[in-house]
């Protein structure tokens, strides 16, 4: 338990978790993700790329480590339990959740980061998942979800009624 909640360094030292997108049969989908260049995948695009990818997870680990020192062994476990349950609260399957409980618990609803300034999802930006295919088949629906669009930070679901 002690080792699990040691405070990591401010600069994240871990390795990237980004994997290439594979399409059907586990092969790289050239149409969607472009040509594969192994060397470019191995080397870093920018010195900050790794640290930016790991930043939120690292920050969470720092908070857990501090909670262990301040509140004892139970506090980080309680925090993790509440985060995990908040992450499971969602909308219909296939539709992205707002994670409101998670944001309030983490304090990010009252905070601003660079992600609120640059590359904010614009109006009419489409979600990546294919809505109808991700719905389980035992769901009784007499309509087909054609598209999911982000409009003013709210997901709009465009439904085709049969």
């Amino acid at each position: 338990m002690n080792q699990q909640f040691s405070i990591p360094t401010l600069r994240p030292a871990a390795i990237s978790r980004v994997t290439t997108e594979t399409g059907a049969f586990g092969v790289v989908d050239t149409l969607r993700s472009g040509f594969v260049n192994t060397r470019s995948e191995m080397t870093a695009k920018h010195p900050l790329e790794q640290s930016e990818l790991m930043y939120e997870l690292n920050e969470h680990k720092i908070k857990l480590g501090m909670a262990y020192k301040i509140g004892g062994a139970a506090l980080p476990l309680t925090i993790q339990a509440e985060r995990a349950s908040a992450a499971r609260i969602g909308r219909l399957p296939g539709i992205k959740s707002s994670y409101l409980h998670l944001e309030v618990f983490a304090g990010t609803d009252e905070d601003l980061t660079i992600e609120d300034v640059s590359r904010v999802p614009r109006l009419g930006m489409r979600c990546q998942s294919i809505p109808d295919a991700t719905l389980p088949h035992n769901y009784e629906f007499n309509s087909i979800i054609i598209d999911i669009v982000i409009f003013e930070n709210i997901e709009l679901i465009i439904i085709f009624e049969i």
Partner: protein
Amino acid sequence: MAAVVDQMFKVTEDSKGFSFDNCRRNAFMSKQGVTFPSARKTGTTIVGVIFNEGVVLGADTRATGGSIVCDLNCEKIHYIADNIYCCGAGTAADTEFTTKMVSSKMELLKLRTGREGRVVSSLRMLKQYLFRYQGHVSAALVLGGVDVTGPALYTVYPHGSTDKLPYVTMGSGSLAAMSVFEDGYKVGLNEEAAKKLVRDAIRAGIVNDLGSGSNVDITVIKKGSVEQFRPYEVICQKSERQGDYTFPRGTTVVTNTTEIVPFSVLEVTDEEVMEL
């Protein structure tokens, strides 16, 4: 449980924030010899000094892009909160965005706590933001304000280190300005003396440093009041043209001063038209 937590932090291709997609292309292009446009910098003189009632912040107003002056009168003293202001040196976009973001965060904090913000809060936000980007966000700042604990003055370097000092200078003209401060600073200055000292320091930076120029801007922060002088003084006055190079209508080149033959266009009679 760990798997769910990890999934929450998994980064997808459509993530927000800084994008490093073009970095490889840019590195390749610069290796091929393509010159990129230089970032607009505020090669600058910014200063701050604590006096007996508060803080005086001063800055010049020149913004350069390479060796060209982009902006003769740019604003380098940025608003963070009603009682906190921040001078910015370095890349103009970086200082602008950083101070705007910290200003918004301070407002959110003020709404959350119901209290007037403290200088140390904005300092910690700046410090953590700049350290996250390891100096790539090139913003060197002088942060000053008056809060419940009294007047406070800090410097923030691009890599995230900070200093708490009674008088500070930053930017390319910082050495010139610091020499004026080292000579003239005393503990317990009054407002007029502090403003004069800041004006002298900025003037030293403007006159001796090529990256600084134009006017002196001053902001005086006291408990409950902020006074902004923009400009406090114009140092670089564009001079009047000495001579006038416009020619009156009808002027032609004079080739032979001894024989000036008056020639009227209306009196030409002899004309030979050649027919082919």
